[in-house]
């Protein structure tokens, strides 16, 4: 925290107040009230985003938990450490920041999954436009790669791809899964912007969007509110590992018999494959159902909530 504070030009950019000005004011006026310090210096009165950082400074300076450190000592220690890191960073050269994510594909004859990557800019940033690159690998539920897409997204444009166009439709299944691995980066220097890849499910009654995300886990605990009896709660699971993934799940703390296969089960997912797990609600609890999911390899999970006929589908990150 102190590390980042010292790199910033101002502690409050709205009011153009430097951290040393804030510290000096507290010291000179012997201020012991945080709100008073903010009111008198004018910090955190506009966007208020800096409040947490200001509080860190205030606690370091006046807090009762720590022996007050000498600012000179902190500055000296940090400046030496920071200058070594800065030097090493400079010598190492630069590389593009790659934003990665997974798209949980869901489809049937009336549901399709669309990927959208935008590179539009607001008018207040008209001079800082750069192109981005998109790499997208599409996998079927068994983990077979069916398509690789590479696109350049020019400023003031976007890319929309119907991912399910590349996957086979099985009319015997109510709903089918697949997945796409996304990488978005730019070879040009600029702001990362608002071009995080998003996706949406187009149904006969909704088009709900979500951003892609990475971050993987092996164990998942979920406590979900019980909804209408007809709605479907589905856990989308992608196997991130390169071995067969052994998954087990159960409802936790239920009064129902969890040996019943409707309330606990085991299954396998192939490498890069995906699975949609239909989650039953614990009818013995009127508010929540708790689920425990364990896997032998890492997984990426999304929670899908759908109406009975799949005409309204939402998706959220979980875990």
């Amino acid at each position, binding site marked *: 925290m102190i590390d980042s504070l010292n790199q*910033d*030009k101002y502690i409050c*950019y709205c009011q153009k107040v430097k951290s040393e000005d804030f510290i000096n004011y507290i010291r000179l006026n012997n201020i012991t009230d945080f709100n008073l310090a903010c009111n008198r210096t004018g910090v955190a009165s*506009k*966007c*208020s*985003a800096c409040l*947490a*950082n200001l509080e860190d400074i205030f*606690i370091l300076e006046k807090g009762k*938990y*720590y022996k007050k450190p000498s600012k000179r000592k902190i500055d000296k220690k940090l400046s030496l450490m920071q200058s070594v890191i800065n030097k*090493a*960073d*400079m010598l*190492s*050269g*630069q*590389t*593009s*920041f790659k934003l990665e994510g997974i798209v949980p594909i869901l489809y049937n004859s009336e549901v399709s999954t669309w990927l*959208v990557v*935008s590179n*539009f800019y*607001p*008018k*207040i*940033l008209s001079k800082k436009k750069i192109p981005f690159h998109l790499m997208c690998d599409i996998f079927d539920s068994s983990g077979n790669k069916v398509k690789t897409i590479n696109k350049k997204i020019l400023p003031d444009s*976007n890319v*929309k791809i119907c991912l399910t166009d590349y996957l086979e439709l099985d009319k015997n299944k109510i709903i089918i899964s697949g997945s796409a691995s996304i990488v978005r980066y*730019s070879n040009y*220097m*600029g*702001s*990362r912007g*608002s071009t*995080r890849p*998003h996706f*949406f499910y*187009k149904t006969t*009654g*909704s*088009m*709900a*969007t979500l*951003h892609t995300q990475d971050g993987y886990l*092996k164990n998942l605990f979920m*406590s*979900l*509110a019980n*909804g*209408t009896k007809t709605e479907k709660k589905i856990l989308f699971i992608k196997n991130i590992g390169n071995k067969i993934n052994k998954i087990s799940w159960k409802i936790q703390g239920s009064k129902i018999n969890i040996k019943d296969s409707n309330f606990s089960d085991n299954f396998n997912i192939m490498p890069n494959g995906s699975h949609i797990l239909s989650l039953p609600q614990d009818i013995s609890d009127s*508010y929540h159902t708790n689920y425990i999911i364990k896997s032998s390899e*890492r997984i990426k999970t999304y*929670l899908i*909530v*759908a109406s009975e006929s799949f005409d309204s*589908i*939402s998706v*959220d990150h979980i875990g």
Partner: protein
Amino acid sequence: MKYRYFIPTIHFGPIKGTTISQRLPLELIEGLIIGDSAEFEINREIFSNGEGILKEKKLLKYSKSKWVNLEAENFIWTNLNNDNLCYLETTMNVTDGAVMHHHIPGYYVFYTNKLSKSYLSCGSYKYGNPRVILQVAEFGQWLDGYPCINIDKDIDTTYSIIIINPYNRVTNIEIEIPELNISLKIKVKPKRTERVDFSEIIDRNEWSGQVYVYGSQRAVIYFVNHKISSFANITTIEHPDPFRAEKTKLPRLQKLRSSFHTFLKSKRDDN
């Protein structure tokens, strides 16, 4: 660092006929408590039309590494008769003991009703968002957006933007749709929630694209996918995607440090 509070979180309030269900992530909060005991005061307040319409205070105890009174964990409230939009502000102060971080771990609230499917939403920190600090430093203002607003009048679906002003000052924000050259200025009074339906400002039968929202003072923003014919029939509520001021390039050594950190974190999480 030791802290005596978590930064307040803001959630969109339930619309009339809907129940909001909040379960605090105690299993994650437990990991932030310094020592084996602590006491928390949890304040939940619903604001609508500039006024607090519901206030609830509960005490939560953690003693000898166990939660004692779990009834404070849940907050369940049904909006039976309030036609106005509202929001929920949750504060969690440590009245005894301390925690090692002031950002509460992320969690969802659930919205359920008898007529349509449930949906969920994550909260937004009332202040202390590092991305906003970087935005103000780089661009001189707060700048949020959403790259995929969808409208399709044939299937009766649209998006609305929800603007929550949980602060004590009036906020003036601008909504911009660059592709269509549309911009709209909105003033939101303190402790109020406003909504703009994109199907009413975009004169197209079908459209998907980028929206930006910005201003000198931040507001809490959500985007809601719902039926054009009924705002009560909601499919999803999502948070915006901030316009990131961070650079597209970074030092190779920094990337190496970051990869090593991710590797260590994944090993810890696996165990």
